[in-house]
């Protein structure tokens, strides 16, 4: 190693991107009035705030169980309906199954859903159904279509077309091809996607709860609004445990599917 190894010309390719990103960040900070001083103040305040939340209000813990269960149920129902919907859209979006115009329509709808944030969908549905669990479940279900629909459609398209052709050549109709040729091939992926989506949906159900869908998210929001900080911390801890447990469970199950499948 010599000094020549550190000559400035070697770093030239990083110079312009670094400068550009720095300038952009500084400009953006100026536009929305963010400063290091404000950040520092905020950190101190939030530290104090968290300290004020301690200790958690264990008395409130039993009251949290039912809303927590509600959140899980909302996430579960949302995922179940969503998987069904995603499955339908995926079948219609696969070029090996559907005619080109059906495929394009379905792909378009899947893409459209992906571009809509769940919160926007919820707001639209709340306008139609009013507050409560129903719009939340529907939101989560529709939310599944964008991601799962796309992934499943790709999995279906990856099935060897000869496999499908060989079934058609014994006189099988489309439904039979789907039941015997497509379904068994995509099942492991379907379960894996659904488990992953359940994780996502549980977190989402907490957020949606705060916006009026009920469940543990609503408890948290309510506690903050009534300045019951100890109670809020309890809700927060319950959410943390819930999300963590779901993640572990889902990851464990997904690993198991992978291990149990010699072909993947």
């Amino acid at each position, binding site marked *: 190693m010599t000094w020549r190894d550190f000559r400035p010309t070697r770093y030239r390719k990083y110079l312009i991107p670094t400068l550009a990103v720095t300038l952009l960040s500084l400009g953006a900070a100026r536009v929305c009035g963010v400063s290091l001083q404000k950040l520092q103040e905020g950190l101190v305040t939030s530290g104090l705030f968290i300290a004020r939340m301690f200790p958690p209000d264990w008395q409130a813990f039993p009251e949290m169980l039912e809303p927590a269960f509600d959140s899980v149920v909302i996430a579960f129902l949302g995922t179940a309906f969503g998987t069904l919907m995603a499955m339908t859209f995926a079948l219609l979006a696969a070029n090996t199954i559907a005619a080109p115009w059906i495929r394009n329509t379905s792909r378009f709808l899947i893409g459209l859903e992906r571009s809509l944030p769940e919160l926007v969908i919820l707001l639209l549905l709340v306008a139609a159904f009013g507050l409560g669990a129903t719009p939340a479940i529907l939101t989560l279900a529709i939310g599944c279509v964008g991601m799962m629909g796309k992934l499943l459609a790709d999995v279906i398209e990856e099935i*060897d077309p*000869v496999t499908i052709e060989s*079934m058609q*050549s014994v*006189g099988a109709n489309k439904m039979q091809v789907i039941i*015997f*040729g497509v379904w*068994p091939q995509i099942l*492991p992926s379907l379960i894996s996607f659904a488990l992953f989506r359940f994780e996502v949906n549980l977190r989402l159900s907490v957020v949606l709860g705060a916006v009026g869908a009920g469940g543990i998210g609503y408890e948290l929001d309510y506690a903050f609004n009534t300045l019951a900080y100890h109670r809020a911390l309890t809700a927060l801890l319950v959410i943390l445990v819930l999300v963590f447990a779901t993640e572990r469970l889902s990851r464990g199950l997904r690993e198991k599917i992978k291990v149990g499948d*010699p072909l993947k």
Partner: protein
Amino acid sequence: MLEVRNLTKSLPNGRRLLDGISFTVERGEFVGILGASGAGKTLTLRCLNGLLRPDAGSVFVRDEQDIAHDICKIRKRQLRHMREKIGVIFQGYHLVKRLSALENVLIGRLGQISTLRSILYGFTDDEANQALLALAQVKMDHLAGTRTGSLSGGEMQRVAIARAIFQQPTLLLADEPISNLDPSNAKVIMKLIKPLSEQVPVVGVFHQPDMTAKYCTRVIAIKQGKVIYDGDPKLSDQLLAEIYGEELTVIENKILVKQGESVAS
């Protein structure tokens, strides 16, 4: 019985892929179709069960009532009905990999059961037993419960034959059934297909003139979409050279590249 009349198929740019292919196959015949890559062998075979519609020409296949139907002209629904009795063994691995060997054999009769039944319960125990017998016929019954994805190439092709047997076809087609197999496995497969030709006409596409000479009862050679030979399965070296182009030397029904490097048997 199978009767092919004047099959013609062209690309949109006018290039002729099939140019008036005609032949008939009777029960008891095991016909091997030979030809260089791109000659139109597989295309011809795909016309025989309606996977491809030719521009002109007819393919007559007889149903159970011994009425001849033109596969190229019938409607989709009727085509599905005709396909119930046309067995096809495809090139390579066309089985549903995550289903067991037995389930893959049962698929052979999918066209013969109603959609509602396939949703509700699928196949009966009786049918499963028959499928097991078909597997036993190709000596695969000991692997009936194994997922086909974990079988070897030769084993998969045997399951494919069992599917065709279980289907009880009136016509059996085979599209390069031994292309992906080693010589000894290829022999096993040919030995399994051969006896089936005693009950139904069998038409297969092959790349191995030595195999067709040994097992087929008749060979049809296709070159540039035309039948250039139809007759005895043992072909002269001269004829083989003509089928596969002049760049090849042929020794005892095996094709050698002129430089003597790679050997295709």
